[in-house]
């Protein structure tokens, strides 16, 4: 799957692979030892956040689960 930042796709895939393994083998099993993906995540984020700014995607400041607040 491609990233919204064309230059970020490889970094995204590297991070995704790390995350998917950690998620199934550690997180879901309650293993709270450290997250091995921090570094690849940060590299990927630097790239994708820059792409978001360049493309002026209006995601900044949008509250987490924002619209869910006024739903029953």
């Amino acid at each position: 799957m491609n990233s919204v930042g064309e230059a970020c796709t490889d970094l995204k895939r590297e991070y995704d692979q790390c995350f998917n393994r950690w998620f199934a083998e550690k997180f879901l099993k309650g293993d709270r030892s450290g997250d091995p993906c921090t570094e690849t995540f940060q590299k990927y984020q630097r790239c994708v956040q820059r792409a978001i700014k360049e493309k002026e995607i209006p995601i900044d400041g949008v509250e987490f689960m924002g619209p869910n607040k006024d739903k029953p």
Partner: protein
Amino acid sequence: MVKYFCNNTDIRSAWDHVVSAFWQRYPNPFSTHVLTEDVVYREVTVDHRLLTRRLLKKTNRLPRWAERFFPAGMSRSVYIVEDSIVDPVNRSLTTYTWNLNHTTLMSVEERCIFQDSVEQPATTQLKREAWISSGVYGFSRPIQEFGLARFKSNQVKSMKGLEYALSNLQGEAPQRLLRDTVKDASEKAREAAKSLASAATVPKKPQQYV
């Protein structure tokens, strides 16, 4: 006026598999309308829940009659935010998804809750709700009808895509993992209560537009 939709589905896979597949469902043969996917925020809370925000870009193909609402040169693709919380202790995944742009034309919000089925072992139940509204003066009803029809057809693709990702994870050929327990009586009741005796023309049932 908002159109409300709700249905329940049983997925014949354990919750752990469903949640793992949730992260890996793009791309799939049914998701050609999803152009990009990015995780833009992620955090494990002190109580061991996983918070994630994904940003998706999707195509936005419209029927001809709706194209007039797009000024020439306006970007067609839609940016969508999907926020989610995985709670591995209580075994629930809650997602909230909505579009960031083109909101005057149509706003679609969707909430999904994935939990272990109460009745069946090794089965996950999904409760899906949506709220669809349009702010276009004089055309909000046909636009909302279109939006609801497109939402329903996209949900079929979404479930097929999840099924596909699940079968990849489990190393099997895609099988019927889904059993629909559609309960949309509440949706019908709400529509009846909210429908106006309006003279607005509703276009004939649209093709599959994504």
